[in-house]
């Protein structure tokens, strides 16, 4: 029982048992086969042996029989002394009389039959009797008789004894062999077990199992070591990701907190300044800068969550990259100009068509431009080029800024990685811009790579996007060719949230649009009648006259019936959308309104008829 248990639990004992079992069974089977075969052929071999003995003896004693020389005949027979298994031999003369005899010396004299028996042999009482005629010169001159020991069971006993001795010797050899096998098999396995325990207890993934053989166990050791290396890499990567996330959270809190102080200050200034327009303007401008910084941060944050949850999606249509690049330039221009950089743009005349999402592509390239502007000392130079290379469209953003070390190139696209943490905080983002860039490029089926000759040598980002097979004329977004100036729109903003209305108004104005702002429904209607806007962004929840009523009345009056009406509301339920549609709205935006959504509406606001 205990033996069985130890065998079940110990590889070492299993190997030992295996070797011994194989040895015993192989020897037993081969021995048994050999014995069976030998017993079967023993009688035949033995009688053949006796017959040939008789033949030799007959040949030798032929002349003695012929010439009746008894002494010579007995001398001939005595040769049988060298054959210990032959007990007796005799010669009979031609007339059947006993002529000469031989008995084994250490035996009592044997008795011989008075006359020769029949030619051939018989077995009787462990003895074999053989008679054979002696021929000389073609004549029978007598008969020879041999008598031998015939004991097959003695032979069997000898065999079993030999087998037993061989088995004992083999078991000793097998035991030694299994000892060697243990070194070759169980020792490495035990070492693997030992090392894995060590790894688990110490959490040290740098430990390795020593490889001692090149066989399957060697492979196991290699695989185990490779696994350890992989686990080590992953745990290191996890730690690194965790560290970056912590840093990110710290940065995020800091970044979100940062703009609040100037905003609060500006509010104080506004309270104190009263009617001083200069001071008020400055305060508002300050607040606007800070708020836009915060909006950018929150936008980034939203993108981060989209990336991590895999919800970042693009809607691809064939489009000309000029449009997306124009949008990007427009978005990044204020920052580039504020840093006093020189932006050099080199775009080919011909359309470069890719399958993509214009808004996302614009975001991608503006991120790269902002990045270049951010990491270049004021007054630097930023180059944006577009060219075609085989089946790819290649967009290059190059700057002469702080550059980066070669070892940073590999991680620059990882989440929350920032090259220069010493950078002024107001410029620093959250370290997600390039991650977003890479993700967007991948979603477009392209690649992005960073290159830099080293720190202080400037850097270059190269985006490759596969060219579209579609023709440009199929592209619906091809009307804007080269960014601003776009079509100038007449825009009415109606919202009781003056901050929102003003900030959006300012934004649209800066794009060259004509903008009017109304802070309630009645004012909105009055302005609409007089201003006749192309587009009206109307808040639903306004005092006095709510948005639905504004829409209905605008639709009912001929001067404003053709206007594109966009509902802006905090409610995004299908029910709300339906109600907005019934009131006459063309589009429906849910607060907070995405700037890109507004831009895309401005791009595409083609209500059939009036706006053309």
């Amino acid at each position: 029982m205990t033996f069985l248990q130890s065998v079940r639990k110990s590889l070492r004992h299993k190997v030992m048992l295996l070797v011994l079992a194989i040895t015993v069974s192989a020897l037993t089977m081969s021995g048994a086969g050999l014995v069976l075969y030998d017993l079967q052929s023993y009688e035949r071999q033995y009688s053949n042996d006796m017959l040939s003995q008789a033949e030799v003896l007959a040949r030798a004693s032929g002349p003695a029989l012929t010439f009746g020389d008894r002494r010579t005949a007995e001398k001939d027979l005595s040769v049988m002394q060298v054959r210990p298994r032959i007990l007796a031999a005799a010669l009979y003369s031609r007339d059947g009389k006993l002529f000469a005899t031989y008995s084994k010396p250490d035996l009592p004299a044997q008795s011989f039959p008075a006359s020769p028996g029949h030619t051939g042999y018989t077995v009787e009482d462990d003895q074999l009797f053989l008679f054979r005629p002696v021929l000389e010169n073609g004549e029978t001159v007598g008969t020879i008789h041999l008598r031998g020991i015939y004991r097959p069971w003695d032979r069997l006993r000898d065999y079993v004894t030999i087998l037993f001795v061989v088995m004992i010797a083999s078991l000793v050899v097998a035991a030694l062999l299994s000892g060697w096998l243990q070194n070759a098999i169980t020792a490495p396995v035990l070492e693997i077990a030992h090392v894995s325990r060590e790894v688990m207890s110490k959490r040290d993934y740098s430990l390795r199992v020593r490889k001692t053989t090149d066989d399957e166990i060697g492979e196991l050791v290699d695989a185990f070591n490779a696994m350890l290396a992989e686990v080590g890499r992953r745990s290191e990567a996890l730690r690194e990701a965790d560290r970056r996330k912590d840093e990110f959270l710290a940065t995020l809190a800091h970044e979100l907190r940062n703009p609040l102080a100037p905003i609060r200050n500006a509010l104080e200034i506004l309270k104190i300044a009263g009617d001083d327009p200069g001071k008020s303007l400055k305060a508002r401008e300050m607040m606007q800068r800070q708020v836009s910084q915060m909006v950018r941060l929150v936008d980034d944050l939203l993108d981060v969550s989209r990336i991590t949850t895999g919800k970042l999606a693009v809607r691809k249509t064939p489009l000309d990259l000029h449009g997306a690049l124009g949008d990007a330039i427009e978005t990044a221009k204020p920052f580039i100009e504020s840093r006093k950089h020189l932006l050099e743009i080199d775009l080919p005349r011909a359309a470069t068509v890719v399958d993509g999402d214009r808004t996302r592509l614009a975001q991608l390239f503006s991120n790269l431009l902002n990045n270049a502007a951010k990491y270049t000392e004021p007054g630097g130079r930023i180059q944006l080029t577009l060219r075609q290379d085989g089946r790819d469209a290649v967009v290059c953003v190059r700057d002469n800024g702080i550059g980066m070390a070669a070892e940073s190139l590999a991680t620059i696209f990882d989440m929350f990685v920032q090259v220069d943490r010493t950078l002024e905080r107001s410029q620093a983002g959250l370290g997600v811009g390039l991650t977003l860039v890479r993700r967007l490029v991948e979603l477009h089926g392209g690649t992005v790579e960073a290159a830099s000759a080293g720190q202080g040598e400037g850097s270059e980002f190269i985006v490759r996007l596969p060219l579209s097979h579609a023709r440009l004329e199929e592209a619906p977004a091809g009307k804007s060719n080269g960014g601003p100036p776009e079509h100038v729109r007449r825009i009415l903003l109606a919202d009781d949230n003056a901050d929102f209305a003003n900030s959006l108004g300012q934004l649209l104005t800066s794009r060259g649009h004509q903008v009017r702002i109304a802070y309630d429904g009645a004012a909105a209607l009055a302005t609409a009648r007089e201003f006749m806007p192309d587009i009206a962004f109307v808040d639903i929840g306004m005092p006095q006259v709510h948005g639905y009523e504004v829409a209905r009345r605008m639709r009912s009056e001929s001067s404003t019936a053709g206007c594109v009406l966009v509902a802006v509301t905090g409610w995004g339920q299908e029910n709300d959308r339906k109600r907005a549609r019934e009131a006459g709205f063309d589009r429906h935006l849910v607060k907070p309104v995405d700037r890109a959504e507004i831009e895309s509406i401005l791009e595409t606001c083609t209500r059939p008829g009036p706006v053309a």
Partner: protein
Amino acid sequence: MDLLIHTRRSALWLAAAAVAAFASSALAQQAAEAAVKAAFLYKFAGYVEWPDSALLPSEAPFTIGIIGADDVAAELDRLVPGRTVLNRRVVVRRVKEGEGLKGVHLLFIGRGEANPRALLRAAQQQGTLAVTESERGFELGSAINFVTLDDRIGFEVSLESAEKSGLRISSRMLAVARRVVARQ
């Protein structure tokens, strides 16, 4: 006294009986000796190789010549019918004085021949196996000589004489010879 006389008479009778018995046994022994010698002569042929010249012509019978031993010749006459040597019929020829030995393969010169020398020389010259039963047999040039020892008939072989006749005698036969005179 009576007893003594009786004893003498008995002894006399006994002596007479012994003499008679001896005489008769001597006669019987002589006859048996002739039979054994006849059988040996025939058997010698199985262990001897003759020169090719002596065996011509090939269809000739194997001839055993006898001189000076009529009893042996008579025994052979009884023995040979139906037997062969070297795949030839065996015949017995009684050789006369002065007769040639042509065609005789084996010649037995018995004690009855007083002057064997010429015969032996002739035998030696033409490859005939010469057998004698005399102590001087080898001296005169015979190859095989019968001897009697302890009442048993045996034979001696002279390889020297055999060689002179161009004969080769099997070593198996030599193994049972009483004496072998080697070549010099």
